[in-house]
């Protein structure tokens, strides 16, 4: 085995993106964990109410939304890898694809909210729907910020004078956070019993 092959097999260790973004990601995760803890605790205090309210959510929409966000995470991961080897065309395409999946998620979420409100389930209807609208709403804000972040990545990738791999990785790290927070929210709101 040649030295070159050995180097390919074992790439140097690196922190993806700026360490500040990782500090932010871990902090945000802690904040969301606190919300989730309160939600689970209050759920156990009134299980019947939570079960009956939860039954009004469509699990299939939740599964669809999760698969869409996972697709967006996959495409932003491909974007980072393409940019790393200098393939900026495919990287840009993947960044746009990520934004497209994000948009599909956004539309699906708005549709789901409208449907729930039409069914008479608003923010103040009961404890379950307060948590539902609060958790999905705050995640939605993170998603909107995600579009700005993707815009920064696209702006970086478009011009050779601006391209910064570290910034592209930082943007991707934020987008993945939006994804894994949804993975948790989906499990807790739609499937937990």
């Amino acid at each position: 085995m040649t030295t070159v092959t050995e180097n390919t097999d074992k790439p140097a260790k690196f922190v993806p993106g700026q360490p500040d973004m990782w500090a932010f990601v871990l902090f945000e995760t802690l904040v969301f964990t606190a919300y989730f803890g309160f939600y689970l605790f209050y759920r156990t205090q009134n299980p019947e109410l939570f079960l009956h309210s939860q039954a009004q959510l469509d699990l299939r929409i939740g599964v669809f939304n999760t698969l869409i966000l996972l697709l967006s995470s996959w495409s932003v991961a491909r974007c980072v890898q393409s940019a790393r080897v200098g393939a900026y065309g495919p990287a840009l395409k993947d960044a746009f694809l990520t934004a497209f999946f994000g948009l599909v998620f956004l539309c699906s979420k708005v549709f789901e909210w409208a449907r729930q409100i039409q069914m008479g389930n608003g923010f103040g209807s009961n404890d379950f729907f307060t948590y539902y609208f609060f958790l999905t709403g705050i995640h939605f804000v993170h998603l909107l910020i995600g579009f700005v972040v993707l815009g920064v990545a696209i702006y970086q990738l478009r011009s050779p004078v601006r391209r910064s791999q570290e910034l592209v990785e930082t943007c991707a790290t934020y987008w993945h956070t939006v994804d894994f927070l949804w993975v948790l929210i989906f499990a807790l709101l739609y499937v937990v019993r």
Partner: protein
Amino acid sequence: MIKFNKRLLVVWLVLASFTLGYLWIDHSAEDHAGSLRSSAVVTSSVIVIALIKVRIIFREFMEVRQAPVLLCRLTDAWVLLIAVALLGSYFIGTAIR
């Protein structure tokens, strides 16, 4: 031409399978009359599966696998912390109800 990364595809397929697995869990959580009931087993399994998915996203999509040991340990500690907080809240809540 950039080489297609099969590993990322496999990661997505695993994450998608776990997600679709929730449909089966949801179906089996219903009783014979089709109504919903509380279940600590379902809740624990759902939380553990979600955290496995989060760890896969950390390691594969977020490239923690190739990061220095400190970040690997830190993200693993975070996943454990979330597990303790969520399962703790659920079981403490159930116990004092």
